């Protein structure tokens, strides 16, 4: 089994609609039932982000705003477990359909 990060890509403010939420819930229930679920969450708007740089010896530096000013941002994510990319792709397609947004699928680095 491998784990994959499914990032939800979006480009406008606002959370999922009620219909989208219902579809996401149903999709999540199925993930749990089929043993693919690891974690999932929605994120607040990128403007609420703070970049933190704790490198070096001194105090950490805080910067208001997201690391990348881009039109598209990550609005939420799933962490899924799947035996291979074919299964992960099918799950990601279901997730994209449920949340009504494009997603990016990326494998976790294996230890």
């Amino acid at each position, binding site marked *: 089994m*491998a784990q994959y990060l499914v990032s939800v890509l979006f480009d406008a403010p606002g959370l999922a609609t009620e219909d989208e939420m219902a579809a996401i819930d149903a999709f999540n229930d199925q993930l749990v039932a089929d043993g693919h679920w690891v974690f999932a969450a929605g994120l607040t708007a990128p403007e609420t982000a703070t970049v933190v740089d704790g490198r070096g010896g001194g105090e950490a530096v805080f910067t208001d705003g997201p690391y990348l000013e881009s039109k598209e941002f990550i609005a939420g994510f799933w962490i899924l477990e799947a035996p*291979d*990319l*074919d299964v992960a792709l*099918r799950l990601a397609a279901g997730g994209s359909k449920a949340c009504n947004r494009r997603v990016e699928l*990326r494998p976790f*680095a294996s230890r």
Partner: protein
Amino acid sequence: MTDLDEVITRVHREEWARVVATLARRFGDLDIAEEMAAEAFATAVERWPADGVPPNPGAWLTTTAHRKAVDRLRREAKREEKHRKALMPSDTPEPLGAIDDDRLRLIFTCCHPALAMEARVALTLRMVGGLTVPEIARAFLVQETAMGQRITRAKTKIKAARIPYRVPAREDLPARVTGVLAVLYLIFNEGYLASDPGKEAVRADLTAEAIRLTRLVRALLPADGEVAGLLALMLLTEARRTARVSASGELVTLAEQDRGAWDRELIAEGHALVRARLASGQAPGRYQILAAVNAVHTDARDVRDTDWSQVVALYDQLVRLDPSPIVRLNRAIAVAEIDGPQVALAEVDGLPLEGYHAFHATRADLLRRLGRSEQSRAAYDRAIELAGNTAETAYLTRRRDQLPRP
């Protein structure tokens, strides 16, 4: 070339995919499979002149490559001082059983939809076709290092993202076969209609390689109608290859080709495939329909004998499957032969193909036939601007310059 060179070349052509595919399954690693297969062939080149060609060259190569892979993994395990027994397969090679399935696994892996199209093409030519990286780089006019990186990157993704080494699940199979056929057709077309002005107009090495790979896929998936259709389409296109470019390097259109120069053997094989598909009674996919169109063309000894109503009927069928502007453009070309250039032009004019050279070339020809020389000239200009193929540019330029001057 000596007899032995010929034997080695033939064995390479016939056995490369088998050796790579078997090793890839045993070791779960395309890199090892590719490198050890290459080493095994190098060993064959060294040893066979003295030892003679073994009775079963494929098995000899697989065993040799397997041993080399085991040796290498052992050395690496020792060097890394890690207990890597889990990665080590048994020393005795498995009996040669589901080898054909391995080649199919290899093809589906190389043509996986999660890889970029150009990576699929390169990987298929390398891993399945056995072409070297410099050969593939030359075929696509790409720097060797860039082509090497393209293949390495694809292999890295296969490993890291866990693209599985298996024939896809039943529900994915039709789409995945379509994906494999798209790769093969792209290789064929790159050979048949090289898109780059710097390249030769037709490159027989790529068309031959595409046909060889499609024959392999057909042998592995004999029941698939679209695989048969694509093979027929390639054969019927390849049959006209030598007649398609003149001695001076100019494109010769279907209507003007010397039909006596067509390859009758390829045509007979293509026609047999098309007939078998028609007899199956199954609804044809796009490649089968395109093969049938080419069967109609290659059936006519003279262009005037072409059954154009049959061609239009086939394109009608294709439009129902794929109502894309390019299909409608090709349908309109056939319509011109039945209903005349005026009717065809009306169908062509509305198509959103402003950036496609064949759209302008078709318009130019229809306008020429209608005697609208100035508009025709403008359309030829635009087609020449957009055409990348040298033979096509030469043809379009001559046709333009033959238009009556105002």
